[in-house]
């Protein structure tokens, strides 16, 4: 069954899009991670123009994270001071990112830039997960964890020297406002460039670099994701006309069902084995993106800014 996407300006198979959303939703439910970093590349592989894929994915993350954020807020897991400080950077970064997308599309190099960032990001995330889970399976978890502990302490010393140190009572930490705003800016910018929530950066940064309790980090991350992606959706609509509501809703229908299935399945599997599978999937997607960058394209000429217009 085909449905016409009004902003992408093309018909798509409804079941393919819901299926992609569901597949990424299952992974997201299984591993407790957001699926944005997989969903955007998979949409691109399916022929959706990259700018429309990223902006519409951001739109569906608004839907996917709203209820979780609300639930964590009710449970008192959101550090509001941290969340709002982070959002100052997040909103600025998202607004800057959407403008950056516009400029890069003007030069015809948005697709290239986003693919490069994706390759670096997926290589880091996939590589780290693979090594960590292989080590865990071998029983050498302690050795692997050792350097991770050293690194943050050095980094924390650097952050401690930054100006505007302030107390974040709920997280029980003291850190520089500049660092939190800077982190928010980077995450906001990535949300606009790649169509991701940025949990894969925010979570380790909050837990390892800032030393926040994991549950408060999860709640605060979800809180910031909702508002960062709301801002990015509006900014993309204004700067690039690339938000396809129909695509976003289809993706959400798939991802929300998939996430429920995934979360229930996760009880029956071992964490390390699952993480190896996710790592391999992430690395395969990365390899496919690398191929598209190094292989000679079928045609050297392409439309400068596909999608988002008639």
């Amino acid at each position, binding site marked *: 069954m085909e449905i016409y996407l009004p902003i992408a300006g093309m018909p798509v198979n409804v079941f393919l899009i819901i299926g992609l959303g569901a597949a990424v939703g299952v992974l997201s*439910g299984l591993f407790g991670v957001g699926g944005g970093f997989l969903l955007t590349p998979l949409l691109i592989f399916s022929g959706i123009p990259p700018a429309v894929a990223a902006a519409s994915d951001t739109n569906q993350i608004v839907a996917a994270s709203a209820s979780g954020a609300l639930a964590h807020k009710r449970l008192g897991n959101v550090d509001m001071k941290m969340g709002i400080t982070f959002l100052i950077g997040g909103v600025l970064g998202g607004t800057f990112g959407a403008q950056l997308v516009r400029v890069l599309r003007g030069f015809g190099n948005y697709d290239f830039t986003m693919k490069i960032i994706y390759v670096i990001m997926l290589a880091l995330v996939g590589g780290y997960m693979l090594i960590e889970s292989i080590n865990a399976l071998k029983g050498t978890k302690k050795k692997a964890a050792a350097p991770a502990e050293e690194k943050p302490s050095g980094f924390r010393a650097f952050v401690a020297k930054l100006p505007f140190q302030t107390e974040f009572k709920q997280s029980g930490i003291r850190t520089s406002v500049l660092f939190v705003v800077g982190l928010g800016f980077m995450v906001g910018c990535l949300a606009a460039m790649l169509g991701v929530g940025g949990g894969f950066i925010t979570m380790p940064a909050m837990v390892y670099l800032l030393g926040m309790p994991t549950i408060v980090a999860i709640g605060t991350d979800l809180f910031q994701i909702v508002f960062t992606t709301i801002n990015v959706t509006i900014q993309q*609509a204004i700067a690039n006309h690339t938000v396809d509501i129909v695509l976003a809703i289809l993706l959400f229908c798939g991802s929300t069902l998939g996430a429920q299935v995934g979360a229930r399945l996760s009880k029956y599997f071992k964490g390390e084995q699952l993480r190896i599978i996710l790592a391999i999937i992430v690395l395969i997607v990365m390899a496919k993106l690398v191929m598209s960058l190094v292989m000679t394209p079928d045609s050297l000429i392409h439309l400068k800014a596909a999608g988002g217009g008639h």
Partner: protein
Amino acid sequence: MKLFKKGAALICALLLVFGFAGSALAAGVDFSMTPGTVDVGMDFAGTQVKVTGTAPEGSNVIIKATAPGHPQGLARDGKVSGLWMTVETATVKGAPGMYQVWTSGSINDIPAAAQKEMGVDPEFSAIMNTAEVTTKDGEKTVTLTGDRAEVYLKGLIDIYKEKGLYTINEGTVQVNNGSFEAVLDIPASVPRGELSISVYAVDQDGTVLADITKPLMVQDVGLVATLGHMAHENPVAYGITAVVIALATGLTAANLFKIIFAKIFKDEGVSAGH
């Protein structure tokens, strides 16, 4: 009463004169299309338009569908440090946004002069001569010529061919005793606005006996029109609408799951984890 009779006679005379003039213009070729417009709605995946008409007996019939060309931004890839990226951009003006031809016979049987007269161009080479390719050199706009322009034009033709916008369909018009019939495949990527549908009747010597051109309107309808228009004309409202719909859908789905899971699994369901 006398005045009424005189008036009626005058109207009849005028109708006769214009009636003859009209048929003289059409000169033996006419056609109609079903449907009369192409509506792009949520279920649009390309469509078919049936063309039926009359042409002088024994003639070959050629149907041509063209769309006006809007300036098209193109990018050329080059290898930089082993990676393929855009190294130059250009704008092509004057290339039709659609160029499809359906014929009753082989296009090669039509003499070059007749092909030129009809603007029927199997290799799309006329586009190469009429379209203009420009690029930016700093602040200046430079017109590209020769090979540098040809790369872009050939690239654009390939893109349009792949989208089904540039096609040559030989032997697809059925001619029978002075009438003809064809089914035009209109691709999903058809440009919005007015298409020109021309029908030509060509005799066996390659002389164009008659031709007629009619417009075919391609328009967005329903949700495609509403959302597409809003996204471009009022992007702030569109962005806010997208956010409100996402929040409403997200929260409704979460509550639905809670109700369903409370009944099936006797729990409150699980967070999406985003």
